[in-house]
């Protein structure tokens, strides 16, 4: 369970460039919730995820994960419980290390890193099975450096790495936006499958309204740092892209950007 209480992030406070990127946002994700987040450019979606993951500190407010206050925990300690994917497929993997080494590192998440083998024999079998499930042929290239893979392959691998030790929370920040439409669809359905299979509590930022309504069970709409709408239940089930656009303009000062309309 994730709880954000009055989350506020102010960049460059006290300067002319002061910017309230997240303004008093509160919400709760119950266990197993798959929540999508939309909003125009600069609405604070990435800031929201960064504040939850610990990449940026909250200026005020609290973050609770499974009832524990993690507001002051540094990023790498929160990472024990939080899996994460970025928009940039290059960000999630170590390019000069092999596929199995990357998986080996991810598989050690939350444990102390000692002098045991980085990739154990038994692990290797597990990795092969998991890679086979991705259906990208990566199971035969486990000794290949990740830097040689395509963006889509790297993002699929990152997804596997983020979930190989089932996290309490999965954060996805436009993780298919940098991929071509076909690969993007593949990664999206892979995400949905993995999230459902392990019942992972997930917060997914997307610029694709269709995806935001199609996947998950709840949608948050951000505008200029504020949470202006929360869609769930039957209201969300009957929501269309057009209706959501109208609802947005009625509630927000700005317009959803063009790249949102899909």
């Amino acid at each position, binding site marked *: 369970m994730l709880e954000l209480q009055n989350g506020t992030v102010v960049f460059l406070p006290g300067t002319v460039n002061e910017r309230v990127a997240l303004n008093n946002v509160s919400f709760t994700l119950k266990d197993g919730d798959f929540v999508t987040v939309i909003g125009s450019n600069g609405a604070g979606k990435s800031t929201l995820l960064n504040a939850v993951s610990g990449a940026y500190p909250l200026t005020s407010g609290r973050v609770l994960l499974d009832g524990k206050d993690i507001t002051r925990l540094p990023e*790498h300690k929160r*990472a024990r419980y939080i899996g994460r994917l970025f928009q940039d497929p290059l960000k999630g993997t170590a390019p000069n*290390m092999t596929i199995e080494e990357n998986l080996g*590192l*991810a598989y050690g998440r939350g444990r102390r*890193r000692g*002098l*045991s*083998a980085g990739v154990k024999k038994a692990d290797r079998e597990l990795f092969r099975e998991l890679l086979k499930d991705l259906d990208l042929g990566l199971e035969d290239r486990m000794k290949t450096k990740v830097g040689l893979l395509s963006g889509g392959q790297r993002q699929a691998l990152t997804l596997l790495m*983020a979930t190989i030790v089932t996290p309490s929370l999965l954060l996805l920040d436009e993780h298919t936006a940098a991929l071509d439409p076909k690969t993007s669809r593949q990664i999206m359905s892979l995400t949905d499958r993995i999230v459902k299979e392990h019942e992972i509590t997930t917060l997914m930022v997307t610029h694709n309204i269709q995806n935001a309504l199609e996947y998950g069970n709840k949608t948050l709409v951000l505008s200029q740092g504020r949470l202006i709408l929360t869609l769930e239940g039957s209201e969300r089930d009957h929501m269309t892209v057009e209706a959501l656009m109208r609802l947005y303009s009625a509630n927000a000062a700005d317009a959803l950007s063009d790249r949102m309309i899909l």
Partner: protein
Amino acid sequence: MSLIILTDGLRLGLIYAIMALGIFISFRILNIPDLTVDGSFTLGMAVFAVFAMDGRPFLGLLLAPLAGLAAGCVTGLLLTKLKVQPILAGILTMTGLYSINLLVMKESPNISLFNSGTVFSLAETILPGFLKPYVNFLFPALVLAALTLLLLLFLRTQLGMSLRATGDNEAMVRASSISADRMKILGLALANALVSFSGAMMAQYQEFADISFGIGMVVVGLASIIIGEAFLGRRSIVCNVLAAILGSVLYQIVISLVFSTGLNTLFMKLLSAVILTVALAVPLVKDAVKKGKSGRAAVKRGEPNDA
């Protein structure tokens, strides 16, 4: 004559290769240009020399890397906790070490070990008779082989992989619940432990320690690594580590050859700077030549040149 030069270069190369392994950790694995090296090399020499003078060279060989470890930690802490720029962090430690090294050497700028028992002479006593003449070569070779093996094994452990990933993609490391800061400190500590150990071996081999011996060592180490990579490439970790060793040996052989012509040794540091500059320039020039050629070929074929 030239055989002696070759074996001399080989021996020096084996000892400097230990330093190159250290610089490989900071420079290539962590991607941090660590200038602590100049100071920690001398630190190793100094620590070894004072213990060797006391008739305890083996203790000196043991403590020298520990001193280097501490020096590396200081640079690591400056870098991570005080967010000092990597180059500056190294310079700070190196500068501070100058005083510390002098202090360790009891305020004398050089220490001669000519009359002290050496590790080589002690090692010689345990070698079987027919190997005795080769002790100056065998001892460093065995030490280097052992360290190389340990380093390669370490780099395949969870901890070693975390270290490698830190230089490769820090964001990913933090996302995997690893403290990147701790990895940088660990890496710099290990790197400088090796550098100091190399310094200790050098003091033993040359039978003296000198306060300014370490000046420019980082350049020697980097040049060695780059030269080795020119021959072996950067395909795998094993390849990279072997490249550092091969490069070190080649570098020292070249240096020995050059100075065997009677060139004044005052040119030593200038030569090392020139060698590194050339080593850095060669790949660029090669690239440019390749591009020029393919560009010209493309023009001949009537294709647009997008270079």
